């Protein structure tokens, strides 16, 4: 497939102590490994297996995906706005898949 594109939604600013909502959507077919071609040949599994979110380097959220996660995986979760800095997103998966995105947040 072509380059992985991700859409992340992190508020640009927040007050210290606020709970902020984060959304992450990444382009990936999430081939389950249970499908077959029209000739009956199994299509090998190719999925994202892990998502990790860090806030200035500290892990705040992690998700472990199985083939039951829909294509173009979507996640919504939350974290407490503690300090200004970078919220980073890292996806890894089968066949060496790796993608990273980040967003800056300013916390007053």
């Amino acid at each position: 497939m072509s380059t992985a594109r991700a859409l992340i939604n992190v508020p640009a600013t927040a007050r210290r102590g606020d709970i902020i909502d984060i959304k992450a959507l990444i382009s990936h077919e999430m081939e389950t490994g249970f499908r077959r071609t029209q000739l009956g040949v199994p299509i090998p599994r190719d999925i994202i297996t892990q998502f990790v979110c860090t806030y200035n380097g500290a892990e705040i959220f992690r998700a472990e995906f199985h083939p039951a996660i829909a294509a173009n995986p979507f996640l919504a979760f939350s974290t407490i706005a503690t300090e200004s800095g970078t919220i980073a997103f890292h996806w890894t998966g089968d066949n060496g898949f790796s993608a990273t995105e980040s967003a800056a947040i300013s916390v007053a």
Partner: protein
Amino acid sequence: MSARADNRAAAALRALGIAAWLTVLAQAAPASEIPLPERRSGYAFMRAETRAMQDDDSANPGMLWVLDGDRLWNAKAGAAARACADCHGDARMSMRGVAARYPAYDAARARPVNLQQRINLCRSEHQQAQPLASESRDLLALAAYVGRQSRGLPIAPEVDERAKPFLEAGRAAFQRRQGQLNLSCAQCHDDNWDRRLAGNAITQAHPNGYPIYRLEWQGLGSLQRRLRNCLVGTRTQAYDYGDAELVNLELFLMWRARGMILETPAVRP
């Protein structure tokens, strides 16, 4: 047989013939078109969760293709090493309203072309680049990006005297019974919309959100892909991508949806 008996027999045969002819006419009569104020987007037939997916740009998977399209719009391509942006500038301004009026009549080709065809014509003529394959990710991304610039605008294909014959061909295709099931598009989408087919709502089939992220495809696809799916579903030989018949049908469908708001990139089941 006596002359009177002959006449009666002939009259009876004539009556039978007329009755048969009326039946044939009734079957061939065009289905009643949906009155303009009663037209509803496919959005109205979806459940709340699916609508929510479309409404949120950070959750709409179709936006991933729009992102890709933004990148491609600004990337130099072809022997001319020219990007779309080099001629068209900021798409948010230059492409505003464009998708809403496609398919559009192309004088050089003396027939309407759809948006993907227009993009490929630009690539080969102005960028000296290879046309992008039908339903390829890059072509869909550009179509989604350009389409997104018309989101919220009313659909308004320009149908002048030159385009009219192609519109009528599209209308005829929409109303024609075809395939093993001998069904016409109109029978479901003009006459039986809002009923259900095996648990799914039958919509009015307005193409007011293409290219769409279709849950069934788990990806983004064009109106032509959807039309081919429907043709296969009614057990009809599907036209190839880019076939003139499909473009005529696209033109008719967009004209039938004139005035409705474009939702590209829409999410549909």
